[in-house]
């Protein structure tokens, strides 16, 4: 492939430089890129397999081999699926409520200097309290375990979303504010059509932090009083010293968390397509 530039009736040939010669030693195919990204997994898996066989372990090995774990995982899939549904029934309402209230209150506070003076000092104290400390109290106060767990997930996800929404509203560029004033937007139109979309990158950052917190709080809460769920599954088999199932539960929970974060990231990309 070559293009020509006519320069004073003389033709100069232009040939693109092959990528490989720019980056010496770069692998030529997609296959090798895929290999690069799975190499950590392969090394870890090998290490696990070797360690589980050669470490001196007793009758009930604390580190079950990959094969035994995979078998346990396969056998537990129906239980794990039921646990997933039970956990999501806590996670989704808690996280959704935290997102709704966190964004609405964060943008409202973030666009009013008076509300910031009122609420930010409080948020600075209440926000960093580890939400896990609320768990026993929430279980004592609220009528069902499910409600208490939803509340704890909500508290954990709320603060990062609130704080990032405030930051997003604060970061609104002057030119967009000027523009909104020239158009004569009402306060509600300004919030909905200017502040909210402009703050979306911040909001998604808050949601990602909030979602990670939600999973931590969910599984911790389930250790306290659940009769189902992913955290409960791991704790249950740990109590019986059934380490293959316990490890399978850990791996499965990791996968569910990863899928949830990936889903959120896909939504973020879609919502922020206009960002250059």
């Amino acid at each position, binding site marked *: 492939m070559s293009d020509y530039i006519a320069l004073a009736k003389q033709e100069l040939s232009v040939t693109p430089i092959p990528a490989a010669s720019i980056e010496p030693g770069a692998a030529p195919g997609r296959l090798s890129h895929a290999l690069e990204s799975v190499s950590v997994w392969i090394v870890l898996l090998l290490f696990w397999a070797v360690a589980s066989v050669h470490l001196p372990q007793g009758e009930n090995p604390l580190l079950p081999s990959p094969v035994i774990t995979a078998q346990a995982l396969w056998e537990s899939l129906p239980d794990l699926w039921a646990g997933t549904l039970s956990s999501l029934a806590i996670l989704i309402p808690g996280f959704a409520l935290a997102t709704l209230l966190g964004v609405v209150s964060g943008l409202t506070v973030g666009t009013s200097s008076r509300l910031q003076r009122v609420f930010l000092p409080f948020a600075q104290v209440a926000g960093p309290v580890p939400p896990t400390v609320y768990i026993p109290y929430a279980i004592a106060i609220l009528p069902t375990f499910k409600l208490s767990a939803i509340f704890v997930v909500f508290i954990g996800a709320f603060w990062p979303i609130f704080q990032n929404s405030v930051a997003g509203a604060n970061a609104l560029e002057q*030119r967009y504010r*000027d*523009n909104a004033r*020239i*158009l*004569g937007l009402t306060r509600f139109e300004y919030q909905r*059509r200017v502040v909210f979309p402009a703050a979306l990158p911040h909001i998604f950052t808050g949601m990602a932090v909030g979602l990670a917190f939600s999973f931590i709080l969910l599984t911790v809460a389930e250790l306290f009083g659940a009769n189902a769920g992913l955290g409960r599954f791991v704790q249950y088999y740990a109590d019986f010293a059934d380490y293959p199932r316990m490890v399978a539960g850990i791996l499965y929970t990791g996968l569910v968390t990863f899928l949830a974060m990936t889903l959120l990231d896909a939504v973020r990309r879609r919502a922020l397509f*206009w*960002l*250059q």
Partner: protein
Amino acid sequence: MHIPEGALVSLLGARGSGKTTLLRLAAGLNAVSSGRLTWNGVAVVGPSLQRGVVFQDYALFPWLSVVDNIEIAIAKAKPTVRKAERLVEAGQYLRDLGLETAIGKYPGELSGGMRQRAAIARALALGSPLLLLDEPFGALDPVNRARLQDLLLEVWELARPRKTIVFVTHDVDEAIYLGDRLIVLGSSPGRVIADLAVPLERPRERRSLLDSHSLHGLREQVAATLLEDTLQRLKAA
């Protein structure tokens, strides 16, 4: 300073001469701390749809498509018109400015010149009798700049009743080519150091204008004024 209805006035000045501040005051974005600023005899206290603004940086909302950016302006200017009709009207403004291919696109997908066309379309869609333009073509390459200058003149000359335009620029040729009148701001901010009429016929022809004696004379006069202002400031310092 008085700006009559239907005039196209160029506001010329070096960086830091306060021309953007003056424009923001006129738009109602900044408050007047001393002196008096009136629009049709009434003091300016805040922004109004009567006074549209085009900024030097592309201030379209990047999360709205180009047509939605125009539609939001029409929605404010004519709240009783239905959304479908507003979209049709927005499309018409964009076509008038040569943006028919950009209607469904987002500002981030457009070139600087196209974005500035869309910004002008939005200012027109507000239906304001006064347009305040703050170096709207400052970031464009010379070819696009000349095209948009001509487009602006065309839009202004065709509109009835004529819109009043205040065009802020630091480019002497642009100020002369566009304006009926040239107001030059000095380096001690906010001071008018020259207020000149531009004795050129309309419609203006860019090519013949470049050779005209009146343009040369005016340009030299402005350059001399600016130079003298700079020398005085240096002497004072």
